[in-house]
């Protein structure tokens, strides 16, 4: 990377780009592929400014979250945003399920899909929540949870820490989901709906 030398960039720039350009997060508590190291590299103030300047050239902006980083695109078309929102919708139910567990699943939690499935099986309320989650066609609860975990791992909210025991860890990027959920404002329908007052507004 010739530019890298010009910008005096860290040598991990390529790795950082490779991760974030595919829409994934870099979380401080991620351990696979040296994710925590990459986080430390970006988190270094000197590196951050350089990386930011560098990526801005290619119209990417590094966004800083609570212990995680991700790319946002400068001047993203609205259609893209809408797609993202649509994609996000499925997470509302997932987060709702996770937050309703006996031991709430949050950043740093470690769990196995089988544990979640078992708890859902034993608790009607949770079971309904799990079954309500759309997009999945798995027949057993276990497989459904697996699919959720798989999806979340792909979106870099979870990390498959131990393949043998199928143990997942919740990454710091999970905070992003919570932040988005928390910034959702629900307006009551007063029968005066205009184009501006949708049921759910995403900030």
């Amino acid at each position: 990377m010739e530019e890298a030398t010009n910008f005096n960039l860290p040598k991990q720039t390529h790795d950082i780009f490779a991760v974030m350009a595919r829409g994934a997060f870099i979380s401080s508590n991620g351990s696979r592929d040296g994710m925590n190291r990459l986080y430390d590299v970006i988190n270094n103030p000197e590196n951050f400014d350089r990386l930011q300047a560098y990526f801005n050239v290619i119209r990417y902006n590094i966004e800083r979250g609570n212990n995680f980083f991700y790319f946002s695109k400068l001047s993203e078309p609205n259609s893209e945003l809408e797609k993202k929102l649509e994609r996000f919708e499925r997470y509302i139910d997932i987060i709702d399920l996770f937050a309703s567990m006996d031991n709430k699943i949050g950043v740093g939690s470690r769990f196995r899909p089988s544990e979640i499935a078992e708890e859902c099986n034993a608790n009607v309320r949770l079971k309904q929540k799990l079954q309500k989650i759309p997009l999945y066609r798995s027949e057993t609860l276990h497989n459904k949870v697996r699919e959720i975990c798989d999806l979340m791992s792909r979106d870099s909210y979870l990390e498959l820490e131990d393949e043998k025991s199928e143990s997942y860890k919740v990454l710091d990027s999970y905070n992003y989901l919570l932040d988005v959920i928390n910034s959702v404002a629900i307006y009551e329908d007063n029968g005066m709906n205009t184009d501006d007052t949708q049921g759910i507004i995403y900030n």
Partner: protein
Amino acid sequence: MENNCRILNRIVQINIANVKYTDLELSGNTCFVGTNNFGKTSLQRAILFFYSANTRGLGISASQKSFEEHYFKYENSYLIYEIQTESKPFFVIIYRHNKLVFRFVDAEYSPDYFFNENDEAIKIKEVIAGFEKRGMFISQQIDTFERYRNIIYGTETDKLLSKFYILKGNEKYQNIPKSITNVFLSSKSSIDSRFIKDFIANSLTTENSSIKLEQVDRQLRQFNEKYTDIETFLKKDSQQLIEFIEKKYDQVHMLKGAQMEMADKLGSSLRYAETQNEAVYKASQEKQEELDKLTETNENQKILLEEKQKDVREEIGYYDRTIREANKKLKEYKEKNIEQAVEKNTEREKLQVDYNIARREYESLTSNVQSIEMKYSSLIEQLRNDKTAYVNKINSRTSEIFNHYNELQLLQKNEFNKKDAELKQKREDALNDLNAEVTSKQIEFNELKAEEKVIRNTRFYETEIKGLETELADLRAINYKNKSELAIKTNLVQTNQKEWENLEIKLKSSLSNQIQKTNNEIIRVKTEIKAIEEKLNVQHDALYGYLEKNVKDWHNTIGKVVNEELLFRTDLNPTITEDKGLSLYGITLKLDDVKVVSKSIEEYQFEKNERLAIIRDLEESLNQFQTINNEEKMLAADKFGKQLGELKEDLKVLTYSLELADKREKKLLLELEDWRQRASTEIEQSLSGNRQKINIIEEELAVLNKKKNNLLNDFNTQFDKLKVFNDERLTDLKSRQETEISELEVEKKNQVKEYEQKETQLSEEKESNFKAKGVDSKEIKKIDTRIKALQEALKEIDQYSQIVSDYLKDKREIFDKLPDLIQKKEEFVKSANDLSAEIEEISRKYNIKRMELNKQKRAFEEELIDFNNGINYFTKNFRETPVFNKYADIIDRAEPKKTNYSVMDLCTQLLTNDSHFNEEYNAFQRYVNEFAGKFRLENHFNFIIRNDATQGEYERFAQNLRSFINENKIELSIAETATQIGLVTDSIATKVRELSGQKDKIQHIITLIAEDFKKAEFEESKLIEFIKIRLEDSDNKVYKLLKRIQEFREENGLVYNEGLFNTDFATHKNREISNRAVKLLDQLRTAIKEQEQEEIRLQDLFELKFNIKEGLNETGWTHKIDSIGSTGTDILVKAIIYITLLHVFIKESSHRGSTDFKVHCIIDEVGQISAHYLRELLRFAKNRNIMMINGLPNKSGLEAHYKYTYQFRREENNNVRIFPSIVTEIEA
């Protein structure tokens, strides 16, 4: 057979593999001819085994039967090697006795030793017995391969065995069997430098002399994991999370404690309510009964007293009336001047005596003129009588009128009195009614006042307030104690911390001193080593090398007189000009007693090794020192950390207790204030009710008083009117009486005047008569005047005699008793007052008691209501909640006890607190998860929390974390990791040093090989113009990094790392060094991962390049030469290289003096080589004392170049028969 050297002369196989018996001579180039799978290779292996005695280095694959299994199937399987020596041959028997064993026999081989008459191989026992019988020497059983090799290669110290050698090897003799093995095992047709490298390296190294990368990777991984864990721990985020966890844990702990306490209270209250319900109800009933009884007793007492009071009042009334009447009479008497009348009455008798005396005087004086006297007296008497009659008549009329009017007046007065009495009665009645009402109101008022007093004196909620006050006092006492304890423990913590810090500083400085000292020493020794190395490096070109090459035994001559420095100077250009013998510039010296100054290369080498050993020792001792230092550190950390941990824990507990106590105190104060407020409110409420009543009564009393006043005014008006009317009437009557009486008095006066005039006339007449008769009329007149005055006085007295008499009677009967009456009345009044007071007191007491009882009853009732409400609330709103389930144990197990809180309040509070607790707990849980999530799943701190962890597990996590912080375990971990990085780099450096230490050997071997190539006599055939070989630095990335680590280690000494992390002790330099070390280790780990190599062997330390020119073809410097020319050429070159290698190794590994031996070079499959080449090759080998053993697939004429040719044939029973082929050898 050549008799002048040692060589493996013969191999005999008896029942070996598929060969029943074979006896093959091998003392020259030998060729085995046979198609595949006929046993050529097996036989070659059997020959190789003679040299290597290593069943695992024979190229038998894992899938094949082992050497022992395949070769030694029977107990009479023997492999016999006969070795030719300078004198007579000896042979070695190999047989299986559980494992393979060897025996040396000092004799030439003969089949007779092993077969019986029936040509059957006999058992070893019999064989041995045979030898013994024959008186031949047979060695003890040699159990190990190594001992066998020691014997064969001439390093055995046992004199009985030391003669059974094939050659005299030196300490490196192991290279010979290795080389022979390697030549045999190499089957590639292309010449790859890697193979040669392997060959050289394998020949020089043992199996263990490699760097096992798995092991290194494990060490690196362990270090890296620890390093990552510590780094994660030290991160700002993690530290912040630790703070949060600590804080939240305390909160959760506190809340939980409070909840448990409250649950216990709830349980106690519930149990108390359940157990006390009946008792309280009963107590309430009892209070009611007590109250009824009290009221009854009070009523009875009151009635009794009121009756008494009534009697007393009646008495008072009676006395009051009597006194009033007496006073009235007395007043009336006084108005009638009774005192004067009484006084006058007392003079009556004296006046009566005076009158009688005067009467008698008068009569004596008038006795002379009695007739005149009589006449005039009778006339005057008559007149007087008339006058008296008239006066009487008038008086009677006056009296009548007087009486009449008096009667009228009396009537009027009576009427008045009657009306007055009636009015008074009315007034009295009305007043009595009013007074009764007022009195009752007054009593009520007094009662209320008394009640107010009681209320004011009553201490409401006394038990609660006293309880709280006691609790507060206890709490303050404990607080005081805890505060002192806290101060003491804080002091202790500071002292301990200081002590620990001092010890740490001491340990650190002692370690750094030791490091400094050791490093200095190492530097010093290294300098010495460098000096030695310099000498060794330059010795070839220096005077030393020259002397070594050119002057025999120079150490004992020049070595004694030359300056050591001179020996290693390269600029001296020594040349032997003329033979001066043993003289110094022509001067002969007797040097027998002079000490040799110069040293041999071995001595220098020895000195260098000695110094290297010193460095190792120094480092070892430094390591030990560091280990001890670390142990001491750990001991200190253990001792102080534990103490501090415990103390800090105590401090936390104390601080927490104090905080709790503070909160409790505030709470208690608030409660106390609340109870006091409630008490005062209660008083106020009671008082306000009371005051209201008092106000009403006061108003009522005021109204009554007004009414009374009005009534009195009204009555007074009526009285006034009545009195006015009466007075008017009386005045009128009196005036009429007076008018009529005055009229009569005027008439009377006039008439009396008339009578008196007539009497005066008669008296004058009488006087004149007396005078006329000479009677002293003056004296008579005087006496008469006196008599008249006395009569008048008596008359006046008689007029009041009745009143006086009445008065005296009244006085005697009434007035004199008046003081007694007053006293009695007063006594009664007093007694009435006493009774009133008594009634009032009783009433007061009753009220107090009643109020007290009512209060108690009310309290019981309220308690009962509270109980029932509480139990109902608990059942309906609490029992089914998860909060109950959470604390069910505590609630159910609680002892019945009265608490200051109601069940309802406790339930509500528990529910509210639980929601707060849940919030706090969730935050706590979140922090723990987040914190644990920062670490690896199997982090060495054991910061792991399962997803389904219980509350207890989360709390234990926080406790462990707290202990970790308190005991400063991170310091220990850092120290361990710092030691570990030292150990890892040291271990790597040692391994690299050990391995690369052999690089010199390689360099040496390569030099020898290169020289040997040069010496190769290719000129004759001109087949190969030259074979060149050279060493280059390794391209192996892992090795390069390993090397860099070793260099780093050499440069910086042992890395003891205070600078591993950004701790307080880390200096800039330390940090830089540490960062470099960490970075290097990290790079190494990545490289190992990427390279996927299992180990770094000697061959990875260098690159080998060839340059071969065959005819016009020159390969140039290359690693691998696929094809130089034809296949035959390739095989030839390969064989030449092998032979060269073998030759070099044999030369290097055998004793210098030992040249009279030959060994075999076993190269299979040389079928494609041309006869010309083969001849060239065999000659090449022969010149190096190497006999070739080759395999050919079939007879092709090539066999003609070998001394021995053996053919292989498979027989019907699958046995292989090996027999010599009859050929004529064309001498190479």
